[in-house]
């Protein structure tokens, strides 16, 4: 029995020893004089690959450009990608692999809210700097973890902006149509909270499945409730069906989308009804649509590097976060450690990237949500226009 106890305690003792050894290396893990290893995790396939693989392509072209220009302080940036399949167990595995096996210096990524949230404890424990670039759930960055920052607009910022937009447009009867999946709930909860704060009572609070091919009941209920503004917590496909079926009933309130509906040209085609988008506005965290000449140079790099992947607004998610990373790395200086990097990142002020709509400002240690400026897009005369 005594021996058994010893055998049981041995691994614990060893583990404690190895953990302390790790802590010493951790500060400079993944750094040599010539390179910095950076890990990215997100889905490579499946419905959410846009937030994973496509965003990573954006990171990659920024790193390529930096490397072509000689790197940062003489160090080339090496991106190591891991597939998390958008699943909790996958994200934990990916993070552990990147941190303990690949021994990266920092992480960029996090595509799906649930899987990234699941990996948060692991990231926090490992102390590895992490810049979140796609998932919008607030729970990943609040409460604040010392080493976790986001360069993406969070769900609560967007939800508040949606409500404010409705009020600013004079809406009196606001309704919500939401998906009740992980993504939808991460927005729905802060939205309800904010509506409560504002004392706004919804005239209709409806659900639509991501797989829905019909939204007539929802459209009828919205119309019956006389909603003048409808907040959509929906992916583009159900949103398109919602707008289509409402238009069919000659019901056209102010539609208020959010950042997943960021390709309004494709969205207009999915709705497939002329004029359906005349009262439609959507949030964007990025500045440009893919066809904008202002980012032509980046698009050319993307096309050259990833000829098989289409240029997408989601490339911008990776691009912006990578630029934030590069900026913080520059500021952290030559004698790079994780602490120095985190300090530099935490003090970013008004950093203007090529991708994000607004500037990036991190207020460490109280607030690690560094992007608070949503932009508004609309579709006018077959063109994307920015609203003020």
């Amino acid at each position: 029995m005594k021996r058994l106890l010893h055998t049981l305690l041995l691994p614990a003792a060893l583990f404690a020893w190895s953990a302390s050894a790790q802590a010493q290396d951790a500060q400079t893990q993944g750094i040599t004089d010539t390179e910095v290893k950076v890990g990215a995790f997100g889905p490579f396939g499946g419905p959410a690959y846009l937030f994973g693989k496509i965003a990573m392509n954006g990171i990659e072209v920024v790193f390529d450009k930096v490397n072509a220009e000689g790197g940062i302080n003489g160090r080339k940036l090496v991106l190591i990608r891991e597939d998390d399949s958008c699943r909790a167990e996958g994200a934990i595995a990916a993070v552990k692999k990147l941190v303990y096996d690949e021994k990266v210096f920092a992480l960029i990524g996090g595509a799906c809210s649930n899987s990234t949230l699941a990996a948060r404890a692991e990231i926090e424990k490992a102390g590895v700097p992490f810049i979140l670039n796609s998932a919008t759930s607030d729970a990943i960055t609040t409460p604040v973890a010392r080493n976790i920052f986001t360069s993406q607009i969070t769900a609560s910022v967007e939800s508040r902006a949606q409500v404010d937009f409705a009020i600013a447009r004079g809406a009196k009867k606001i309704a919500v149509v939401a998906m009740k999946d992980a993504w939808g709930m991460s927005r729905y909860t802060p939205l309800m909270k904010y509506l409560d704060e504002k004392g706004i009572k919804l005239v209709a609070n409806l659900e639509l499945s991501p797989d829905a091919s019909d939204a007539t009941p929802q459209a009828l209920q919205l119309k019956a409730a006389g909603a003048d503004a409808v907040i959509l917590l929906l992916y583009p496909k159900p949103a398109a069906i919602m707008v289509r079926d409402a238009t069919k009933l000659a019901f056209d309130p102010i539609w208020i989308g959010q950042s997943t509906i960021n390709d309004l040209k494709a969205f207009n085609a999915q709705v497939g009804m002329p004029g359906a988008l005349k009262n439609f506005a959507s949030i964007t965290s990025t500045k440009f649509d893919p066809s904008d000449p202002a980012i032509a140079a980046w698009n050319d790099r993307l096309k050259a590097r990833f000829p098989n992947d289409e240029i997408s607004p989601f490339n911008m998610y990776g691009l912006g976060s990578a630029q934030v990373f590069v900026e913080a790395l520059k500021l952290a200086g030559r004698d790079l450690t994780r602490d120095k990097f985190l300090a530099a990142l935490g003090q970013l002020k008004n950093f203007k990237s090529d991708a994000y709509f607004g500037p990036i400002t991190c207020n460490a240690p109280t607030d690690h949500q560094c992007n608070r400026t949503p932009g508004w897009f609309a579709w006018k005369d077959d063109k994307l226009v920015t609203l003020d």
Partner: protein
Amino acid sequence: MLLRLTSPMAAGIALFALLFAAPLLGANEYYSYILNLMMIHVIVTVGLNLVMGHAGQLVFANAAIFGIGAYGTALLMKHFGLPFWLCLPLGAMLAVSIGLALVFPALRLSGIYLALATLAFAQCALWVMVHWTPVTFGAGGFTIPAVSFAPLPISPDMGMYYLAWAVCALLVVLARNIVRSRIGRAFVALSDNEISAQSLGIDLLRYKAAAFGLSSLFAGIAGGLFAGTLRFVGPESFDLHQMILQLVAVVLGGIGSLAGSVIGGVLIVVVLEFTKATKMSVEIVFGGLLLVFVLFAKGGLVVFIRRFLPSWNETLHASPAPRSKAP
């Protein structure tokens, strides 16, 4: 106690010895985590094989039962602040009670009907996880605190690892004894032919309940360990992807083989990591494995092992031809 040191058993002991030693021999946290997932999948696969292989009942709800075990365990911790060691068995009991409810369709249905009815049940269970927000925290899932193993001086991760190790070893031994017992033989009779099984005096209700209860117990415990290891529970962990993972594990190792279940449980985790690392499509790899093994290697990998290791003397209980009865 007399142990006949047969080949599958020797291999099993060696495997568990290796699993015990792996963290001591310097497996980093990533590998420990992967090994931990392996042990959890071994438990699930052994349980699923009892009902699917030995008793010949095609159940597509096992991923959901696994999820119910995880939710049960984690929700009890979250809502009532109960300790993990208490929540794990309670969560498993919840999984068993819901798994037992599936006996009633199973008494009337078999084959394709049972498979699709249980698949529908699984999707309903997922829907409840997503929509019963006040209790399940909805689609966004929820986190639970790290499981403390105080007063043992062992980190939560290592604690979960060795807990999974001990539970897995225990359940594999339990399954071995069940397979060799009267219950195990009754399962096989059931899978061969329900009507003749009845005429042999086998009580259908009791043994189907035993098969479903046992597989749910295994899945429920595995779910609790899964929740404790991940410290996060969300509905998408228990969807169709999880279902095909479990089906592949059973078929890959060998339908109706305990050793095969252990092999299958270990291998799917390896294959999954390999697939992701090589950027292959998880769907094509796992769907393809299922298709290829069902078509060309019906007995699974244990058949190959038996061919090359004459001392591999496990009796297989693959049901030869469970025909679907009309509903």
